[in-house]
């Protein structure tokens, strides 16, 4: 088996995540799809590190994890504060900036 098979899995996961972001309406599910895309990118980084034979890719994946953790914290706080004011977690109900 060629290690680049991992890259194809990563591409598939990224595609599925982007499809979810485009089609779903629930903001929490959209957020989970973004997490899936970040994870797919991480898998690609780890595989690149192995293909290239140095650890830089793993360090970048480590930084991606930290940034993703920050993003989750702030994003979920935004979702909760929107839920408090609009009583809904659907992205269709956040329409004050629409027109």
């Amino acid at each position, binding site marked *: *088996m*060629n290690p680049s*098979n991992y890259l194809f899995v990563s591409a598939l*996961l990224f595609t599925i995540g982007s499809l979810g972001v485009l089609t779903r309406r629930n903001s929490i599910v959209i957020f989970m799809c973004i997490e899936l895309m970040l994870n797919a990118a991480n898998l690609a980084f*780890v595989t690149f590190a192995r293909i290239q*034979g140095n650890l830089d890719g793993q360090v970048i994946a480590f930084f991606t994890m930290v940034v993703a953790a*920050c993003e989750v*914290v*702030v994003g979920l706080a935004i979702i909760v*504060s929107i839920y408090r004011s609009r009583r809904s977690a659907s992205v269709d109900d956040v329409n004050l900036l629409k027109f």
Partner: protein
Amino acid sequence: MNTLALNAGVTGIPEAVLFWILAPLAVLAAAGMVIVKKAVHSALLLAYVMISLAIFYIAQDAPFLGIVQIVVYTGAVMMLFLFILMLVGVDSSDSLIETIRGQRLAALLAGLSVGVLLVAGLGHAFLSGGAVGLDQANSGGNVQGLASLLFSRYVWAFEVVSALLVTAALGAMVLGHRERTVPRRTQRQLSQDRFREGSELPGAPLPNPGVFSRHNAVDIPALLPDGTPAPTSVSRVIKARGGVLPTAPFELKQEHEEDEA
């Protein structure tokens, strides 16, 4: 870990077996995460995908990242997601109405074309070449190698990321804070309220349900001294279910009228 990658460029049989079992399941779980209607099921499927990615990391000579993936993602991040789901409401499922006409079809086309582009580009670039492998880079240990990189070449990024973490914590506190519009009631005020209003007997608990020696159960209101039923003595859950018995047969009457009801 190095036993899995037997030599540079070619992966061993065990890793191939692992990959061909876990990868299709991970992709299926990810697809299910998008398709499934309830947000809780999506979260569980995403946790499964993350665990299989952690196994992939460990199989690819990145044991530290695999453990961190399990601890940070499936441990902390997914717990946070489930916590917010609980806060927002588990039944907040999607509305299935398309708000923009043709949006779902367009999204499907766009997403699939992104996938085709990615896969085609990867196949073009990497199908021919082999891999160097991490045997040499991991010779002093994976964690030691990562640490020496992190604290030498990437030390500035490390510092910036620590500032980012502090900023994110502050941001979450600011976003989650809610200003109190009415002052909090103290325990003294609560006890004063209890004696001034609300109870039939000031300061006393609500009356117990049931009529002694006749029907001493929770589904029948107690009788007040004047013979009328006390509606506050029955739990409102039982009232809402409609399981409250009538008190008429148990009310105090003259001796000779008692056999009627």
